């Protein structure tokens, strides 16, 4: 490790500007996390335009801080409202809400917070120690390997995100189709731009992301508004015995460590996301417990298992991102866009060419965890109040940010029209249960896949035998085939999907 770069990174991470940027990100994320219905990827999609005028380091740390904040904040509404702020905190509500009902809301919130922060810090440290050697090896990954991995990621994500293979194919196919719009890489000829110069660089990612993720979600929410107006938040009372104690902490510590391990493993694999991580961790904690029947009735270990895994997924998802430039989930894919806006190509060369930036981001991530602990601990009462903000106040504000974010992109009216079109598309996909995660990931991966595939075909001069000298590519091609076959078998057996991985 390059120590001069590390110390330079630490000094950059400890400036006032970065404190404000990262702290602001965590705070914003916390608030977004607390509000049910506002999810992480929605927040990132809306926040990317806000980072235009930040330095690359602050911009990326701000967005990562935002992700971390949402993961911690979502526990608050899961515990107090029984309505998780993120799908990934649904497992937290299983034990958190009963515990709050039993008159221990503050203890439950503190357990959630400590599990979140510990999962977060530990996974960030794992990221730092894995990403650096990984990025060194990753230079061995040429176009053949990249094409194979991208194809695998595409199939894998499609398989995990939805029930029916046909709906998955439809959503993924639409994403692939939209991903091919723009100037051809090699000839420079426009494809499907219909004379619009705005489409030469492809469908604007921000419009597609804000539209299908954020704006459409607001449509869905405002529709729900007509049906449920109930808001039954558990009130916090002054009760000095309602707090986390050393014995409780000692009891949940092994669960937190296990949850962190599960979350890190799940996060590093493309396509699985925090919901899979938190439920998997919850299930494992229950299996390992001496009193499995206590789970679901206010068992502190349940909260700890879910929250530690939920938060550990976020740094872990950056392992394939920083190592290979391949996004593991929608949030990571949006981060690629954010890097690109700041003129940085994410991939194996990032560590070599911009070590200070990468180390600064790592330092910023640790800082974000610490800020998260402080904010969560001292702001507990404040965040608990946010669960009482009614959706009819939240929705218009979010819609405003969606539109303002698009205007900042400089596409003018054209951008707003595209945004609206994708909001309508996203709304319909959510209504009729087509996976918009598959759609978005396919849209984002397609240009990379196309480029690497074309490079491979040209460089091999059409000779298949080249692959024999490329074991990594062969492995991933085999995995892709296996995943495809499994997906087809599953559909025809009409089994339940392995897991539902919503937007994360």
């Amino acid at each position, binding site marked *: 490790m390059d120590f001069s770069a590390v110390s330079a990174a630490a000094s950059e991470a400890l400036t006032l500007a970065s404190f404000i940027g990262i702290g602001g990100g965590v705070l914003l994320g916390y608030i977004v996390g607390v509000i049910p219905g506002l999810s992480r990827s929605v927040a990132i999609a809306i926040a990317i335009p806000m980072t235009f005028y930040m330095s690359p380091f602050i911009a990326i740390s701000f967005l990562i801080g935002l992700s971390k904040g949402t993961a911690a904040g979502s526990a608050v509404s899961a515990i107090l409202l029984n309505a998780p702020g993120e799908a990934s905190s649904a497992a937290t509500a299983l034990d958190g809400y009963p515990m709050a009902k039993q008159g221990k809301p503050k203890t439950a919130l503190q357990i959630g917070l400590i599990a979140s922060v510990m999962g977060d810090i530990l996974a960030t440290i794992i990221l730092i120690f894995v990403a650096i050697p990984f990025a060194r090896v990753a230079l061995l990954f040429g176009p053949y390997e990249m094409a194979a991995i991208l194809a695998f990621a595409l199939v894998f994500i499609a398989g995990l995100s939805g029930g029916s293979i046909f709906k998955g194919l439809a959503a993924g196919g639409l994403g692939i189709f939209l991903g091919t719009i723009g100037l051809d890489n090699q000839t420079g000829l426009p494809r499907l731009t219909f004379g619009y110069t*705005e489409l030469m660089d492809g469908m604007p990612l921000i419009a597609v992301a804000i539209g299908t993720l954020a704006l459409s979600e607001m449509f869905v929410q405002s529709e729900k508004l007509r049906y449920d107006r109930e808001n039954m938040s558990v009130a916090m009372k002054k009760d000095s015995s309602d707090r986390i104690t050393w014995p409780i902490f000692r009891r949940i510590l092994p669960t937190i460590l296990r949850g962190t391990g599960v979350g890190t493993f799940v996060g590093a694999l493309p396509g699985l996301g925090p919901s899979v991580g938190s439920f998997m961790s919850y299930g494992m904690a229950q299996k390992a417990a001496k009193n499995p029947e206590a789970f679901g009735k206010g068992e502190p270990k349940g909260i700890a298992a879910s929250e530690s895994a939920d938060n550990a997924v976020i740094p872990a998802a950056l392992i394939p991102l920083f190592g290979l430039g391949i996004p593991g989930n929608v949030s990571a894919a949006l981060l690629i866009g954010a890097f690109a806006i700041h*003129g940085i190509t994410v991939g194996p060369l990032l560590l070599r060419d911009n070590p200070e930036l990468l180390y600064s981001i790592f330092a910023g991530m640790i800082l974000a965890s610490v800020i998260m602990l402080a904010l969560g601990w001292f702001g507990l009462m404040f965040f608990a109040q946010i669960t009482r903000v009614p959706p009819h106040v939240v929705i218009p504000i979010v819609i405003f940010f969606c539109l303002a974010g698009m205007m900042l*992109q400089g596409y003018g009216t054209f951008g707003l029209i595209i945004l609206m079109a994708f909001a309508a598309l996203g709304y319909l996909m959510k209504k009729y249960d087509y996976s918009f995660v598959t759609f978005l990931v396919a849209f984002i991966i397609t240009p990379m896949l196309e480029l690497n595939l074309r490079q491979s075909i040209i*460089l091999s*001069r059409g000779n298949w035998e080249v692959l024999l000298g490329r074991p990594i590519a062969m492995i991933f091609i085999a995995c892709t085939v296996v995943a495809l076959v499994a997906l087809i078998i599953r559909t025809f057996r009409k089994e339940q999907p392995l897991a539902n991985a919503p937007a994360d």
Partner: protein
Amino acid sequence: MKRRSILTAGAALCALLAASAALAEGWKPERPMTMVIGFAAGGSTDIQGRVLARTLEEHFGQPVNVVNQPGGGGAVALTRFLNAAPDGHTFMFGVQLGLTFSPVVTETEYDIDDFRYAGTLVGGQFGLVAAGDAPFQSFDELIAHGQENPMTYAQQLPMDQAIMQQIAAMEGIDLAIVPTGGGGGMAPLLLGGEVDFAFSGGTHAQYTPTGEMNVLAFLTRERSPFYPDVPTLAELGYPYAMDDFRSFFLPGGTPDEIVQAFEEAARFAVGHEPFVEVTVDNTLHPIVFMDAAETEATIREIRAANEALMAN
């Protein structure tokens, strides 16, 4: 009443003085100005442009707002710019490729005659690069190597692809050409040993100091001030050139005095320390000044060369 007439006379005199001063100094902006940049925030054009905006504020005495209109390598911004008022308050810090290259390969709504050109500030440094450990260290050695072995080349634009195809045909090289999608994609291919040599729009500046990359030849018409020993293709006897400059673009129909004012502004900027520093040190581009007439002539010349190249 006498006093008033003196006052009036004084005011008239002031107005007269002001008018003559304005005549002497030429056109002056009356309100905040807008500088359009055809690339996203954070790219080299944007970084240079934002410092340039501060420089122009100093020169013109009016705030300069920067507006990014990314897309199509500047084509989106140029299309929008067709509707800008020709009063000098909206101008573009533009990359010439949008005029010399885009209209050749695709249909655009604008063309060279739709705008006016008021001075060039920054030059490009298109080159052909190889990895530092490649079996050839110069362009001649590359040709010799290529006549014995099949070779691979990473392109970035149809122009450089056309040039390399023609050179390969001329020299009898079996050349496979792959797309890279930009400098960020080129570096891993070249450093990972997947391709033998590549086009570089400026990415090489990061890698040449460590010896990981060598510039074999420049595609520009003149040698780069940063690599005085590297020849241009033309010097090596190949009649091709690819150049790119960054200049002030103004809407068509802009009066001559405004064009002149921007030519002066360009002259001021290329001597202004902060702008020179960010261009040379931060974005590794050479400062190249051309006046309005030379800028327009260069754009037309490069465009004609590109059309001839692509017609083959």
